């Protein structure tokens, strides 16, 4: 047996797991090899020393700490299962802020529908005809638009603003026309002056 072979078998020798003939060969090598004998002695000594070592006992509070973390970890496991099934977007939708926003949107649409006199009723198979759906949507859109326009035009504030704007426009037009007529009169005078006739002389002559 060589030293390298002994090193391979040394662990099993220490465990008492070698066959009789292997053990005999190994012990014969140990008797004649100083370095292997020292190695075996060291290994045996350390193994015996470690056997005397007291086990490292965890403090009692460690168990409590780990068990305290257990619900958090279980929640994480359940959340990861949920996420793997539905993806991360479901989690973001279930945020209270998003849910409140959705609720407000639904409320707004229901109020608009109420205002536009869109009454909910039982759905019939004929309602699913695309042409009918399109015609209905088109009709309702126009009706809703007309109602909205009519409501807007009948608002007191809108009427006041429109009448005020109309007054301003009229005033502006009147001012523009007055200015234009004034300019025409001025240009007539200038033409008369440029032709060499003094109006005062003319008047004197006429007198």
């Amino acid at each position, binding site marked *: 047996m060589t030293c390298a072979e002994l*090193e*391979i078998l*040394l*662990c*099993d020798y220490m465990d008492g797991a070698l066959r009789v003939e292997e053990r005999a060969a190994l012990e014969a090598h140990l008797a004649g090899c100083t370095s292997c004998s020292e*190695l075996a002695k*060291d*290994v045996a*000594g*350390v*193994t*015996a*020393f*470690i056997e*005397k*070592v*007291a*086990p*490292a*006992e*965890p*403090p009692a509070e*460690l*168990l409590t*700490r*780990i*068990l305290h*973390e*257990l619900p958090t*970890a*279980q929640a*994480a*496991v359940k959340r*990861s299962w949920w996420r793997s099934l539905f993806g991360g977007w479901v989690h973001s939708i279930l945020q209270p802020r998003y849910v409140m926003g959705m609720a407000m949107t639904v409320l707004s649409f229901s109020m608009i529908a109420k205002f536009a006199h869109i009454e909910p009723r039982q759905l019939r198979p004929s309602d699913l005809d695309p042409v009918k759906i399109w015609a209905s949507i088109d009709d309702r859109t126009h009706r809703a638009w007309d109602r909205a326009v009519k409501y807007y035009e009948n608002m007191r504030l809108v009427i006041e603003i429109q009448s005020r704007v109309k007054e301003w426009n009229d005033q502006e037009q009147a001012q523009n026309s007055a200015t234009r007529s004034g300019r025409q009169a001025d240009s007539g005078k200038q033409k008369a002056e440029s032709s060499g006739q003094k109006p005062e002389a003319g008047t004197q002559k006429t007198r």
Partner: protein
Amino acid sequence: MATVAIPAAKWNWVPPYRMVRAADSLDADSQLVERCLTGQDAAWEDLVKLHTRRVYSICYRFTNSDAEAQDLTQDVFMRVFKNLKSFRSGEGLFVVWLTRLTRNLLIDHYRRTRMDRATESIEDQVKVLEETATPLSRTDRMLAGREASEILQGALQKLSPELRETVILRDIEEMEYREIAQVLNVPEGTVKSRLNRGRAELARILRRHKVQI
């Protein structure tokens, strides 16, 4: 009329190799794991109670720090809670899976704290070992288990991580060579070779500090 003898073995149904292996390895831990996966809180508690000592012991022997060992043990079980589904009872023992998880976390921790350890004075480490060793060097028989534990801790820190983890798993945790090989992902021959080198190195360290072995 000639009769044909049918070999009896032909009628004996032999289960496939994988099925036999799975049945053998379906130990108590695997059943506990199955209960955990069905969401039984009591099973989780039992699992923690059953394995905390082993995980803490490996962490403490490796890091030589009670606080670090406690934190690492907690981290290990947090990972167990999150990754228990990845454990397949047919592919090995739960203890091996748990020890591998612990070992990987320890190696991560070792690499992360390498710089911190480098700044520590080597003289300080030697001093700690000598302080624990000196009063105990009178005779081997006077070494109490706790004192021997402290001396071993000091000596283990002198070993390289590869030798240290092998010695801890075999000599302290008393795992099989096959299991250690699975944990460390190396052949059994390498485990035995590391064990011999680790033990011999430990013997030299202990002798150097006048501890009789």
